[in-house]
C-alpha cells in the first residue's frame, strides 16, 4: 500500500513538472474565467435576478470556476493521449508500478492544479462577486467539489482517451459530450429555472452536484442540500476513479 502511494506521488510529481512549464495552460485557464465573468457576468448582473438569492455575477463566477475544473479534468485525459503519442506511456506501463497508482497520481495532480487555479480566481473575484470562504466546512465543500468534478472528468477523458488515438477526434468528441454536461449543470443558470425535462437531465448530471457544492462553499448559496451533494460527490470521486483505472487498464494495445 505504501508503494501504491509512493508511485502515485511519483506520477503526481511528474505531472507537476510538466504543468510548471506549460505557461499556455496557466494563462488560458486564468484568462478564460476572467473574460466570461467580465463580459457576460457584469453585463447580465443588472438584468437577471435569480430565485436562489445570489447575484448573477456571483452565480456565474462560481459556475465558471466549476467549468474550469471540469475542463482541467478533461485535460487530464489529453495528457494520456500525449503520453501515448510521445511513447512515454509505454515506459510507464513496463515499470513495476500499478495502473491504479498512475491514474490516482494523474487525478491528484489535476485536483491540485485546479485547486490552485480556483484559489487564485476566487480571490480575484471576491471583491465583485461576494466570494469568501465561510470556514472549514466551506473549504471542505470546495475541495470535495473540485476533487469530485476532476475525478469524473479525468475518468471521462481516460475513457475517451484510451479509445481514440488522435488529439483531433478526442477534442471533437469530448466537446460533444461535455458541452451538454456544462449547460445542464447550473453553471450558467440555476437548475430550478430549467424546464422540466432539462431539469431531470440536470438531476442525473454529476456535474450539477459539483457545481452546487462549489457554489455553496464559495458564496454559501445552494439549490441542493449541501450534505447530499457532498455525500454524492464523495461516492462519485471513488466511482469515477475506479472507472478511470478500469478504462486505463483494460484495452490491450499493440505496444
Amino acid at each position: 500500500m505504501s508503494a501504491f502511494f509512493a508511485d502515485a506521488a511519483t506520477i503526481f510529481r511528474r505531472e507537476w513538472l510538466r504543468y510548471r512549464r506549460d505557461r499556455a495552460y496557466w494563462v488560458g485557464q486564468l484568462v478564460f474565467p476572467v473574460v466570461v465573468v467580465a463580459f457576460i457576468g457584469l453585463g447580465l448582473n443588472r438584468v437577471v435576478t435569480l430565485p436562489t438569492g445570489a447575484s448573477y455575477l456571483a452565480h456565474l463566477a462560481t459556475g465558471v470556476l466549476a467549468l474550469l475544473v471540469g475542463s482541467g479534468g478533461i485535460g487530464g485525459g489529453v495528457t494520456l493521449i500525449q503520453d501515448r503519442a510521445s511513447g512515454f506511456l509505454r515506459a510507464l506501463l513496463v515499470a513495476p508500478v500499478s495502473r491504479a497508482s498512475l491514474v490516482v497520481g494523474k487525478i491528484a495532480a489535476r485536483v491540485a492544479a485546479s485547486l490552485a487555479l480556483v484559489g487564485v480566481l476566487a480571490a480575484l473575484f471576491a471583491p465583485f462577486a461576494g466570494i469568501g470562504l465561510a470556514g472549514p466546512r466551506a473549504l471542505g465543500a470546495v475541495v470535495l467539489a473540485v476533487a469530485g468534478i476532476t475525478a469524473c472528468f479525468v475518468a471521462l477523458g481516460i475513457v475517451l482517451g484510451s479509445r481514440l488515438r488522435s488529439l483531433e477526434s478526442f477534442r471533437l468528441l469530448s466537446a460533444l459530450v461535455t458541452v451538454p454536461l456544462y449547460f445542464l449543470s447550473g453553471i450558467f443558470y440555476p437548475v430550478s429555472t430549467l424546464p422540466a425535462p432539462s431539469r431531470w437531465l440536470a438531476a442525473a448530471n454529476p456535474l450539477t452536484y459539483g457545481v452546487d457544492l462549489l457554489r455553496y462553499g464559495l458564496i454559501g448559496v445552494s439549490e441542493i442540500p449541501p450534505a447530499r451533494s457532498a455525500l454524492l460527490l464523495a461516492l462519485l470521486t471513488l466511482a469515477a476513479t475506479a472507472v478511470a483505472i478500469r478504462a486505463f487498464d483494460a484495452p490491450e494495445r499493440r505496444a
Partner: protein
Amino acid sequence: MIAGGPATLAQALGRRRRALRCAGVTQSFDAGDPTAPPPAIEAEALVKRFGDVTALDGLSLRVAQGICFGLLGPNGAGKTTAISILTTLLRPTAGRARLLGRDVVAERAAVRADLGLVFQEPSLDPELTAREQLDLHARLYHLSDRARRVGDALALSGLEADSNRPVRGFSGGMKRRLEIVRGLLHAPRVLFLDEPTLGLDVAARATIWDALRALRRDGRCTLFLTTHSMEEAEALCDRVAIVDRGRVVVEGTPAALEAALGGDVVWLALERPEGAAARLAALEGVARVAEEAGRDASPTRLRVVVAEGPRRLPALLDAVRAHGVLEVELQRPTLEHVFLHHTGHVFEDAAR
C-alpha cells in the same frame, strides 16, 4: 566516475556494471533440474493474433542467462510483438513465457522489476529534462540513492552538459543514449532492446554497439535484442534466432548457423562451361555444384559450395583453367544466406 569522466560510454558501462550487485534475488527453479538457474527467457509456442492478423504463430525460445541474444527477422516478422509479450506489455493469445523462471502474465509485477526495456521508438517525456527523466525512472523503480545513480547514468550517457534541457531538443542519438542508460538505471537482470540502432547514423550506432559489447563482456545482464540488421546480429550476438512470419525458423550461434550451410560459395563465370561442373564436383571439399543461367547477356555461372573457400579457391581455379575463367567471386556465408536457406526467400522480400 563523474570527476574523471569516462573515456567512452562503453568503458563507463563496463566499469559501472562491474560495480553493481544484484541483491535480493529470488530464483525459481526448473522442475527438471533443481540446481540449474532458470533461463533468462523461455517462450513456449507463443501465439498472438490481432484480429485477422497473426503476428506470432507458435514462437518458442530459450535464452540462457548472461548472453547476448538476437532475434533477427525482417520488418513484420513479429519481433516487436515478441518483445512486448516478454516484457508484459501484451498478453499472448496462446502459449506461455517466463522471465528468469517467472510467468510474464501471472507474475508480471515481479517480472517488470527484473527487466529493462529500450524501445524502438522514443519513449521519453519530451517536456522533462534528461535529469528529471532519470530521476522519475529511479522513483518508479523504488531505487535508493537516486542522486548518485542518476549522476552516474548521466555521466555514462555523455549527456551531462545537456542534463537540464528538455529532451524535446535532443538528437536521435542523444535520445537513444538516454533511453539506454535509463534502461540500465535499475540494474535489470534482463535488458530488452528493440532495434537499438534503427535510424541512427554510423557514429551513433558505433557508440551504442560499443556500449552493448561492454555490457555483454560484463555478463551480469542478459541482453535480448531484436534487429533486422544482419550486420548488427553478427557484431553483437552470442546466439541468434531467425524469425519469419511469427515463428523461429532456426536458432544457434551465428558461426554455427553459417557453417551449417556447408561452407563458402564460389561463383564462377566460364567461357566454356561444358563439363566444368563435373570436374569441380570431384574436388576435395566441394559439397555441391549448381549451374545458374546468366541474366540478360551475362554468361552462365557455376555456384560451388565448398568448405574453407579461401584455401581451396586456387585449386578450384586450376581445375577450370581450360574452360576460360571470366569472373570469380568468393562469398563467405552470412546470416543473410542462413535466412535465405531456411525460409526459401530473400530477406527483403519477407518484409510485409
